[in-house]
């Protein structure tokens, strides 16, 4: 029983990991994109539609990634090209993505597909406990860990990662040094969109194989909170997503076990935990701001 519960926790966390790690890179470059929810929905609807038409889940994931990027590019053009307010534009992107995905997805309602196959490795997948927990997921789930490792390496160990962080911390200095501030930020925004799109794609392809309007149900906002929760450190995104997923599943399992705690309180727990951790982190200013990009949310004007 516990194996299955833990497996459910892992799967529930996957879309959060993707969306949050993408947003982390965006924020590290100094851009705040509040449109994660909208990009996830666009990714979800595109992934489901393409997977249904083509019969290929791989194409579905690809379509989700592209749809997320396309939606993000709109944000990038407005925020970077026209220097619009990032908060307002991000919120608009969420509203836009929610509406457009509903419109595009209308003919997909009531249709079902087969989910992604779980990988079955000879020997390894049959190991007791570990076999089920570690060696029997789908490729996209494994991909989430790979992406976190890659982003951590990129930000910490590569020159390009250093440039991205420099732009996020002081875009004027970076510009003076000759780095293409807007170009790097646009690339980061596209990456963020791609990740949100894949995260969104995971919902209708794997977690519950059908499309429903607004099916992300606030997970994009959780991803945004996770970035702060992780204090802009890639590894902590993974931890945060697992904690969030764990509490989500725990409260459901607790109810089924007959815990005598009001279900409304249990439903609130994951969000409460996020707030508590945010408060704890913010309490320690040095810790909170150590990795916080100094130029986060500020528009860049090259001409100054």
């Amino acid at each position, binding site marked *: *029983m516990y194996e*299955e*519960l833990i497996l*459910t926790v892992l799967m*529930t966390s996957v879309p959060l990991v993707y969306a949050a790690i993408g947003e982390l890179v965006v924020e590290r470059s100094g851009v705040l994109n509040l449109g994660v929810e909208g990009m996830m929905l666009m990714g979800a609807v595109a992934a489901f539609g393409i997977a249904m038409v083509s019969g290929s889940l791989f194409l579905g994931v690809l379509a989700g990634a592209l749809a997320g990027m396309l939606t993000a590019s709109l944000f990038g053009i407005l925020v970077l090209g026209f220097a619009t307010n990032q908060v307002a534009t991000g919120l608009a992107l969420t509203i836009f993505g929610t509406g457009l995905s509903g419109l595009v997805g*209308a003919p997909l*309602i*009531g*249709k*079902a597909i087969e*989910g992604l196959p779980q990988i079955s490795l000879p020997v390894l997948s049959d190991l007791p406990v570990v076999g089920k927990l570690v060696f029997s997921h789908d490729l996209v789930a494994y991909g989430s860990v790979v992406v976190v490792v890659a982003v951590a390496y990129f930000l910490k160990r590569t020159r390009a990662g250093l440039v991205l962080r420099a732009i996020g911390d002081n875009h004027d200095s970076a510009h003076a040094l000759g780095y293409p501030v807007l170009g790097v930020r646009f690339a980061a925004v596209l990456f963020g969109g791609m990740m949100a799109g894949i995260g969104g794609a995971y*919902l209708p392809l794997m*977690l*519950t*194989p*059908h499309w*429903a*309007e607004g*099916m*992300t*149900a606030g*997970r994009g906002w959780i991803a945004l909170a996770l970035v702060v929760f992780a204090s802009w450190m890639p590894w902590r995104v993974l931890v945060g997503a697992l904690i969030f997923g764990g509490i*989500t*599943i725990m409260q*459901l*399992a607790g*109810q*089924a*076990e*007959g*815990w*005598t705690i*009001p*279900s*409304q*309180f249990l*439903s609130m727990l994951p969000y409460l935990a996020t707030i508590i951790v945010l408060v704890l982190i913010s309490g320690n200013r040095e810790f909170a701001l150590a990795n916080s990009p100094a130029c986060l949310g500020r528009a860049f004007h090259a001409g100054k």
Partner: protein
Amino acid sequence: MKKFIKMMALTAAAIGMSAGAAVAEPLKVGFLYLTTPGDHGWTYAHELARQEVQAHFGDKVETTFVENVPEGPDAERVVRELARQGNQVIFGTSFGYMDPMLKVSKDFPDVKFEHITGYKRSGNMATGNIRFYEGRYVQGIVAGMMTKTNKIGYIAPFPIPEAYQGLNAFAIGMREANPNAEIMVIWANTWADPVKEADAAKVLVAQGADVMAQHTDTPAMLQTAEKAGIHGFGQASDMKEFAPNAQLFSSVNNWAPYYIEKIEQVLDGSWSTGDGPNHWAGNTWKGMADGYLELTTFENMPANVKAAAEAAAAKVKGGHNIFTGPIKDNKGNVVIKAGDALDDGRLWSDVFFYAEGIQGEMPG
């Protein structure tokens, strides 16, 4: 955008009406929908009924609808607009339209307002509802007979009277069929969040459930059941397509007879807001006997279970009151005494208990 086009059409229709007032005009009937009919659930059922109304009355009636009307102040604006544009009957198909409709009903005394699932009425506002819980009693009997682990999962929406009616009717049916079966309840605190519903279903499967029921709207639970190789019941519409091997049956809402009856009353002048025996009862509240609630084909079950389901359905149609005492709660206290039965009014006030067979404590 769709709403806008609809409103334009309504405006055009209103202008048309004032221009040709001399000719016998069709009765104009407006509908408010919470979502688009594409939800394949709640609103879809209302849209099917509207189409039936149109087909039934032909050119005697002209129906229009407005989709995606949010509950709350926005609804008031839409209701007012529909009334102003000459609709003589307005059906509001969501609980949250209750207060806005009541408010507008006072400003348009000649328009007939019909509110679905609410309990507030006025001189020109009536209420209508379906006895959804009747189908859940039959589900309970089937679940009790189908389970091998004696563990049944149940995903509930919000702790409101309708949810308790359903859950307890399910438990009563289940215990009639199988005194050892237990229900694990998860309150999802949502009507539709497919990922959360799927998570809840996975958790129930992990905890040993081999039959699952739901009062939430999406097919997520049934898809999980299908994948896990167990059984479940669909919600509001036939969900066979999502779970061909898992769905035992679905209870389907059929609003057409209600709409047709009420519109006929308006046409022949006999329409009234009724006067039910109890304020909470809803003055039109019908179920399986009148075809307001229909069960899809019983499938994926052995012949004896199917026969029991058919017998239970026939019993309900014959007027059996499911909430007939003695009924105990899950701590052994008698909540409905022998010889007592809940009437329509008490079904809204006296259902806040966990019947025998439901595990755990009620949400606060």
